[in-house]
């Protein structure tokens, strides 16, 4: 099955509240929203982040915006003030979420490309099948 970056069909922004990271995610076009709902599940994100996010991940959907908020607890190495990470505020957590690879069917990929989705350069959606 082809795999693409979430970034290819979504955009968003990360913020922080203490040690909690809040990443909002929106579909670049309304017709991509269902793929994002299917692929960017809290479970998939939790598996993807592994040790980086120590607490629970909750997803709050806002269908009227074709968007959602991910609230990730104990995700910033202690939070703004205490974190030893270079990015103590988790400003890069948004792009870290967007870096997750998601599964799309061959047909979905074709219609995504047709609707104007531009994949990241040097990336082959079929790389893992080769």
């Amino acid at each position: 099955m082809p795999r693409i970056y979430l970034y290819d069909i979504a955009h968003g922004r990360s913020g922080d509240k203490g040690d909690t990271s809040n990443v909002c995610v929106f579909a670049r076009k309304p017709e991509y929203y269902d793929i994002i709902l299917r692929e960017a599940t809290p479970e998939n994100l939790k598996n993807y982040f592994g040790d980086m996010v120590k607490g629970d991940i909750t997803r709050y959907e806002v269908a009227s915006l074709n968007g959602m908020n991910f609230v990730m607890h104990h995700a910033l190495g202690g939070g703004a003030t205490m974190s030893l990470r270079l990015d103590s505020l988790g400003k890069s957590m948004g792009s870290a979420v967007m870096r997750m690879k998601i599964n799309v069917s061959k047909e979905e990929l074709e219609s995504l490309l047709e609707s104007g989705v531009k994949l990241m350069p040097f990336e082959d959606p079929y790389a893992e099948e080769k």
Partner: protein
Amino acid sequence: MKKIAIGGGQGFWGDSPDAAIHMIRKADIQYLACDYLAELTLSIMARQKIKDPTKGFAPDFVTRLLKEAGREAFEKKIRIVTNAGGMNVQGCVDSIKSWAEAENLKGYKIGYVTGDDIKDKIPQLIADGWEFPSMDTAGSNDTSGVRFEDIKDKIYNCNAYIGHEQIQKAIADGADTVITGRAADSALFLAPFAHEFGWADDDWDNLARGIMAGHLLECGGQGAGGNFMYDWRSVPDMEHLGFPIAEITEDTFEITKAPDCGGLITEQSVKEQFLYEVLDPANYYTPDVNVDISHATVTQKGENRVSVGGIKGNERPDTIKLCVGYHKGWKTVSMLSFAWPDAYEKARYCADVIMKKMQERGMKADDVHISFIGLDSLHLGVADKSPETIARLNECVMRIAVFSEDKAECAKIIPEISPLQLNGPQGASFFGGRAHVQEVMALYPTVIPRDALKVESHILTV
């Protein structure tokens, strides 16, 4: 139909005043609201005030913004609301008074709001049996964390997030500028709208609209094309980035920006800020109203103009958020840089050598974080660390951060870094100079009963 426009003039303490000055000169606004306070800012200000009692507020509000454009704002009747008072509202008021006198602005009215700083009330609240529950673990199964009991003797500051009422009163009393300490960011924006439209304190839907206007403006440029993931390349004239403006009538709510400046206002730029740091969109708690944006809409209306709708409000909570800053310990950050070939391998090996040395020196660190700038210091575990990427790396900076509650333990690593330039793997060079020990302050987010606060507004006429 009556329309009120507010500009968002500042995203944090240290932000550029350029966009605010531009708005005063060029935009059709009646109010400018400037948010200077991030979560940790008050702790930094509290520490400054301990060293020098005349400090502890954002002086650049006066020395840069008012000095440059305060007279013009006064003449155009653009009223300014800001939390630049930080930990020293009185100091900020004094500074504004001196400025207004020097500018010979007779009759200039400085409004200010007190009552957010409740550090002195803590012993009484403890005696009354209030337990200061931690909000850090709210909504999470994780119950690890700090108890108030552990930190109560190490507190730098203790400030409640106050709402819009007393800010609104100062505006009603004719203030040209209103200064607050830890008012909730969005309350600075809600207050002028509530004053102009006469919204009652339980007009939840309207209060929620005012709060969301504030939410879209309180981060300055981030609401107008700054930090824009959708398409950062598309943002025009970023060196003159405009900040967002909210225009509200009884029926409509639109976001736009000043003429003749950079940045952009699009459906996507507004959406990215709309859910930013909101957590649960159906329950966005503020001191003024519990906001529900779970069915909100954001629609492009024209060039640099977006309409926002579907915002609901519910009754505000009985408790008020309290931000407690306390001394946590100390940290050092040490760095060495390496170039191709084997940039990462050498950096990694160097970190191992240093940590072995520190083990021999008996360093008692409470936490150590090692990462490699250029490879994984931002995306950590999800960064691409494939053999191809590592082999082709041009350069890599080893970064070791050490935390300890004991300052001396934290300092032990400092003299061990520079010798590695001659004694370590090939090609190490110093990056960012010699490390120094920095104080680590932490936040304990909690709540207090609303009636424990005594918030008041005052007017000083120059």
